[in-house]
């Protein structure tokens, strides 16, 4: 895969940021977030597009994880969180009282930093989502499980051990299982919070390849510590620093001709 080249100097694409006819999946408008008195996200404005991989990069504590968790409102599990502004998901404000948070999370899946399978069988892990949404038919569940596992490129490895505990899988397999679990409810967007930071290089490569494939059918937003990874797999990159978006542009541009000095310093490894 050409996109896996380690070089950050990707060839410039012809299109620029001024693309018109792309569907916006997520549009963040004037988002501010506080943990108690700590102003963690400051006036964020970001549109994100369908069937693209949007990478969020930045040093530790810059708010990138907070931001991605705000997109499916998982951030509200933390006590003392206060949010202002709005995030439009398919033109509906996710903070709207009428928009049930469970519905949002069904349509927007999430993959976490550390693989977090349930202590159940591989089959039951994948079937969990469909089951809570009322699918009981065994035949349909079987189909969903196979399709999801194939979708996450792990079917061949686990098809003979579907009824074994998911904790018997390796870390990389567990993470792909979690991606499959997320695919099982057929989401529209997949949020990934540093999905490869707990994985070895080989498993990382597999997950990255998978992300490229998933892009065909899903919109992906990924937080990553690894700038090469952002360069390899994303279409757009947002650079966060101290709770602000410093720069947001096509990945090619961010990694070749960033317009802000701080972005350049960060991607060239001068800090972070």
């Amino acid at each position, binding site marked *: 895969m050409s996109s896996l080249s380690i070089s950050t100097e990707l060839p410039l694409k012809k299109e620029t940021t001024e693309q018109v006819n792309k569907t916006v999946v997520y549009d963040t408008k004037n988002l501010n977030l506080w943990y108690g008195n700590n102003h963690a996200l400051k006036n964020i404005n970001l549109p994100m597009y369908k069937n693209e991989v949007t990478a969020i990069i930045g040093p530790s504590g810059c708010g990138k994880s907070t931001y991605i968790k705000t997109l499916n409102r998982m951030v509200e599990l933390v006590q003392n969180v206060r949010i202002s502004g709005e995030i439009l998901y398919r033109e509906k404000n996710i903070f709207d009282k009428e928009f049930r948070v469970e519905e949002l999370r069904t349509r927007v899946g999430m993959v976490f930093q550390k693989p*977090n399978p349930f202590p159940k069988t591989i089959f039951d892990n994948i079937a969990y989502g469909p089951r809570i949404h009322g699918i009981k038919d065994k035949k349909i569940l079987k189909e969903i499980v196979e399709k999801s596992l194939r979708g996450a490129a792990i079917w061949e490895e686990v098809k003979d051990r579907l009824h074994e505990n998911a*904790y018997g899988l390796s870390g990389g397999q567990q993470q792909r299982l979690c991606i499959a679990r997320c695919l099982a409810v057929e989401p529209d967007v997949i949020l990934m919070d540093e999905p490869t930071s707990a994985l070895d290089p080989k498993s990382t490569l597999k997950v990255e390849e998978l992300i490229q494939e998933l892009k065909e059918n899903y919109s992906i937003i990924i937080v990553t510590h690894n700038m090469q990874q952002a360069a390899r797999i994303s279409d757009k990159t947002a650079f966060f620093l101290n709770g602000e978006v410093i720069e947001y542009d096509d990945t090619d541009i961010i990694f070749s001709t960033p317009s802000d000095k701080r972005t350049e310093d960060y991607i060239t490894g001068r800090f972070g």
Partner: protein
Amino acid sequence: MGKTVSVKDLIRNKDKKNKLMLKAERTIPFILFALASISILTTVGIVSTLLYETFLFFREVSIIEFFTNTNMKPLSRVEPSFSILPLLTGTILISLVAMLVAIPIGLTTAIYLSEYASESVRKAVKPIIEVLAGIPTIVYGFFAFTFVTPILREFIPALQSTNALSPGIVMGIMIIPLVASLSEDAMNSVPKAMREGALALGATKLEVTLRVVIPAAISGIIASFVLGISRAIGETMIVTIASGSSKNFTFDITQSMQTMTAYIVEVTSGDAGAGTTAYYSLYAVAFALFIFTLLMNMFAGHISRKYREAY
């Protein structure tokens, strides 16, 4: 230059002085072993005494009769007869009532505290619940006899003044903190990442609790139930006070019943002379009680291993 002391030298000098420490290091395991054996020896002692006296009892009373007869008249001068069945039904029924109270209330309390209550509420409520566990059982017994029974009699006129229902309920209340506290610990130790995984799939809080947290914590939860049951079976004071001493073979919980433990209290408190058959029956009952709790614990161990979701 010679005056600067290096850490290396300090450590070496200390090593030389510490020959004694080394010796102690070698003897310590033996001391620990000796102390640990105390509990083992005590167990062996108790079990062998029980076995021996039980053996003596069964030389006088047929073992088949003991388990099939339904007449328990240990102190009858005319025709004494011995049967464990009335005591067994008494114990089982009262424990059953207790667990019917303790399990639902204890488990819902645990669910509330672990999944729904805010940190501040939990910090306030947990110690209060644990106060319940610190109340002496004699107080519970008194509470059952003088407070709960009269209230129950308003609703169930047929209720005798000593009965199985009231001590069962009060015993259940006594066991709530045990079930609640242990189940809550088990649920609390389920990693947060697992809850997040389910929530991120669009699960509601209840679905997360019922389908992720409880299955993951099930072995701890079952352990809490079993400890509760063992507690109920072994509980003595409440039943001695509030359920009376009638040895009827009945399944009617509005009537007076005697449990195995209460029987032991009655016989030891002086009604039967040492060496009489009635006196030895005490050991047979105690031995049955011992086997009963042992089986209970083994069964629970089996269940919790079988349904365990290791994470």
